């Protein structure tokens, strides 16, 4: 039912539109030559002016703008590339320096160590020598003392014995006889007092 009404409305409107158009139009205005010359004249004028302004003033400016932007961007990219390369070489240099200085430090350390060891060695040698010398000296002294000791002791014993006999019995005793006795005694028991 609604469809039918709409359909009728459309048909009716077509008829009415036909009437409206028939009333207003007398053919295509485009084919009326009354203003053709005027249109051609104004077209030539406006298009000519437009062309002149665009080609002489505006388009070269846009072109220059585009070019300058292009060159600016490529310049910037070039500069960035250059700086990147520079920083890379700098980084390499830096690494080299660090490597070098590490090596240097190592060698310095090694040298110092060697030197210290050498010093220690030399000093210890000297000290050893001194100590040995002193030990030798001491030993010599001891040996000397040891060699001298028995005769000294014998002498003390002889003197003590002579004095003792004098005091005890009041008689003068020949020193040579006492020394013979002491020699004999010390020969017999000398091994007891001396290790050798």
């Amino acid at each position, binding site marked *: 039912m609604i469809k039918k009404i709409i359909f009728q*409305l459309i048909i009716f409107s077509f008829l009415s539109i036909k009437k409206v*158009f028939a009333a207003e139009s007398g053919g295509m*205005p*485009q084919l009326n030559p009354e203003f053709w010359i005027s249109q051609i004249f104004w077209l030539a004028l*406006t*298009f000519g002016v437009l062309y002149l302004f*665009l080609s002489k003033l505006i388009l070269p400016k846009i072109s220059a*703008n585009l070019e*300058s932007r292009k060159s600016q961007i490529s310049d910037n990219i070039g500069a960035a590339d250059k700086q990147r390369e520079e920083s890379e070489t700098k980084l390499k240099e830096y690494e080299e320096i660090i490597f070098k200085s590490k090596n240097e430090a190592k060698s310095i350390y090694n040298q110092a160590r060697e030197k210290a060891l050498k010093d220690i060695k030399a000093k210890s040698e000297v000290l050893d020598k001194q100590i040995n010398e002193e030990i030798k000296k001491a030993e010599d002294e001891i040996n000397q003392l040891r060699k001298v000791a028995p005769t000294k002791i014998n002498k003390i014993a002889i003197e003590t014995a002579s004095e003792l006999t004098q005091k005890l019995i009041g008689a003068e005793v020949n020193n040579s006889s006492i020394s013979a006795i002491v020699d004999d005694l010390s020969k017999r028991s000398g091994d007891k007092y001396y290790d050798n």
Partner: protein
Amino acid sequence: MTQFEVYRIGPEIKIGAFDISFTNASLFMVISSLAILLIFNLGSKKNSLLPSKLQLLAELSYTFVSKMISDTAGSKARPYFAFIFSLFMFVLFCNMFGMIPYTFTVTSHIIVTFMLAAFIFIGVTIIGFIKHGFGYLKLFVPSGVPAVLLPLIVVIEIISYLSRPISLSVRLFANMMAGHTMMKVFGGFVISLGIVGGWLPLSFSVALTGLEILVAFLQAYVFAILTCIYLNDALNLHH
């Protein structure tokens, strides 16, 4: 059809026997040209690394047309860049201004489009003869055609060459006129069907407006690219 009516604005101006009065058509030609000049002048005034909106618009249009020309006509067409750019912009702006209600569409008049097309046709023919001398006539003799068919082919080629200005102008004019007439018809439906049935043609009208804006751009593009193709024939003669 009142929207296609041309009427005088101001006094009647005559040069000799010719009436060159300022009309509504002239008005919209002037408006379109001024709009183009204004937009592109503002868009090229300041050169910043990050372009403003207008500058971007101007530069995108420039590269768009430049690419269109180099794609279709090669590098030899470089000197004609300004002409094709102006042509494209003029037709585009005339079409677009015609989309505003109560305006006049300059390109919906056959005399305007035909004058443009005839100018292009004559210009391209002159360029062809200057570049290739009488060798330009080889355009009508395609290679690799059997000798028996040659007379027929040459006649067809000549006719197709001569019909270029007509096809170029009628394409633009007919598209613009048909589109505007269709919108007018649907608008008429809205009025006659009233509040009950008018919604359907109204929605059609809205959709058609979008389509017409597309057509306005497309026809300007087609007009410019066909000019490039004709120019290509004249500059790089190989058939």
